[in-house]
């Protein structure tokens, strides 16, 4: 722990290291279970869709699909290796499995099964995983701070890191027609709704410029795009103009879109991600820019290379530098 608990301190009722907590700020607009509803809607037309989960349907919003189509939902029990290999077999027989678990279990426990049984044969399995990065205060057992680093090296695998409820509900029908394996990071429960104010539409493999300004370019994915947009508003009060390029597809990366944005002269590039600074979007962008001789001032905002503390999410996001205020503060200090 970074902070020593104080003896006889009064209980702080608002903090919790419970497994499940919403990312939404008090009063923020949200939508319930966008993945579950989008999948259920899509499955009405697409009869090949089946749902599979490893004892986490309720916690991945898959329960909505399971309730709508009980005969198309497969509860595989708490067995992620089986979940992935059985999904491979189902895909070989013409089904399109959407499988859910937590990101830690897919990336750490079931890697070999996703790699060999699914990706090596380029099978049409969509792997949708809750609790990506630091979205639970439960501790390292459930904090998938390195899932993208693990998965980026896997050939054939597409990686999606959506920002909000709108992104998720658009990503689901967008990845379905693509016939190949996809890993999608999932925000579940009451998910913030942000991008509807930015004339945004999810396009597989494309980055989207949400704000185009001149002082700094924040390249971000997942809910860090929401934080970047909020931080940009804070920075504006200090007369710092921040652009935000949202990169929901981590792999394959929208190289042309990122290069074009990062090539604009005089703009510092900051990559912000809900992931370890090792092996994620930050390093992917850095390598891309260097390979093309694009060398703006470059900084990373992400999780440190360490096992993170348990605690309440707002506390931890502040502690590890991915809260809105911390993002704005860091950027200001670099200018």
């Amino acid at each position, binding site marked *: 722990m970074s902070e020593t608990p104080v003896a006889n301190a009064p209980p702080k009722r608002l903090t919790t290291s419970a497994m499940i907590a919403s990312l939404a700020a008090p009063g923020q607009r949200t939508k319930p279970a966008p993945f579950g509803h989008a999948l259920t809607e899509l499955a009405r037309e697409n009869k090949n869709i*089946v749902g599979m989960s490893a004892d986490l349907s309720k916690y991945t919003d898959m329960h909505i699909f399971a309730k709508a189509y009980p005969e198309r939902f*497969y509860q*595989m*029990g708490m*067995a992620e*290796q*089986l979940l*992935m*290999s*059985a*999904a*491979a*077999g*189902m*895909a*070989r*027989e*013409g*089904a399109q499995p959407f499988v859910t678990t937590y990101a830690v279990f897919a990336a750490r426990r079931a890697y*070999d*099964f996703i790699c*060999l*049984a699914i990706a*090596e*044969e380029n099978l049409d399995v969509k792997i949708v995983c809750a609790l990506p990065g630091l979205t639970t205060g439960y501790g390292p057992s459930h904090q998938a701070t390195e899932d993208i680093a693990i998965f980026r090296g896997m050939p054939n695998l597409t990686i999606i890191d959506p920002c909000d409820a709108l992104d998720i509900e658009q990503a689901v029908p967008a990845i379905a027609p693509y016939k190949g394996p996809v890993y999608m990071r999932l925000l579940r429960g009451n998910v913030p709704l942000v991008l509807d104010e930015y004339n945004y539409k999810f396009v597989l493999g494309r980055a989207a410029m949400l704000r185009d300004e001149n002082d700094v370019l924040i390249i971000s994915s997942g809910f860090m795009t929401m934080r970047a947009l909020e931080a940009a508003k804070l920075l504006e009060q200090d007369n710092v103009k921040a652009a935000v390029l949202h990169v929901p597809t981590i792999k394959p990366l929208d190289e042309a879109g990122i290069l074009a944005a990062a090539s604009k002269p005089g703009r510092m590039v900051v990559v912000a991600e809900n992931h370890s600074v090792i092996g994620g979007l930050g390093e992917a962008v850095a390598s891309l820019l260097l390979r093309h001789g694009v060398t703006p001032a470059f900084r990373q905002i992400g999780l440190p290379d360490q096992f993170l503390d348990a605690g309440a999410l707002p506390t931890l996001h502040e502690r590890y530098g991915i809260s809105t205020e911390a993002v704005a503060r860091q950027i200001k200090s670099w200018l």
Partner: protein
Amino acid sequence: MNKLSNISLARRAWRIRRNALRMGEVQGQGYIAQALGIADVLAVAYFHALSFRPEEPEWEERDRFLLSIGHYAIALYAALIEAGIIPESELETYGSDDSRLPMSGMASYTPGMEITGGSLGHGLGIAVGFALGLKRKSSKNFVYNLLSDGELNEGSTWEAAMAGSHWKLDNLIAIVDINDQQADGPSSAMTSREPQIDRWRAFGWYVERVDGNNIDEVVAAFDRARLHDGAQPRVILCDTKMAKGVKFLEEREMNHFLRVDPDEWEMALNILDEGKPA
């Protein structure tokens, strides 16, 4: 497929062994002892039990045969050649650059190879998915999965075993090659211990255990496994002898990955030919 007489099956097994030895000779080494050991089971599988069309390996109404033990590819290629799915002329490309017959079995390389094996412990779970997928389509076809006693060390195999009975997968038939040999030594000295029958029964499976080198016994076990009317998956435990049919290789110690001297291949083929069935 026509159901062939058991004498013909012996002839099929002999030819599978011969194909495997000839492929082993191409590389001078390989998992030839496993191929010789499992040849009788493969002969019964392909020429007694399975539905398939040689000219149409992806025929929807075929029975699926999943090889999770990728290193047994040499054995399955030998059977697929005998079955007419792979032309015999490709035999001499075994393990060579750009061949469709790599040393470890992979789905994208070879007609008739349903899955990519090699990372042990995947096959039975994938087979569960195939079996669920076939039931979803109301297919009457079977899913066979050939795994090894060494593969029973893998916990994922037992996740799949639990799922097979949970889902009442009566279209799933596991075949376990019990040759008591894995990379570091005898399987029975590791964690794949007896009692195998009790273990599988406890997981809810219908169990047959046979001498995997006795074709009559293997045929009867396949028939009982297919015709069993319980709503449960089936397993055929096949005790086999490594390098069966070539005495001097049978007697070689630690024959998991056999190195055979150049002059010995000819000798092995001659010994095999002396025992050619009528």
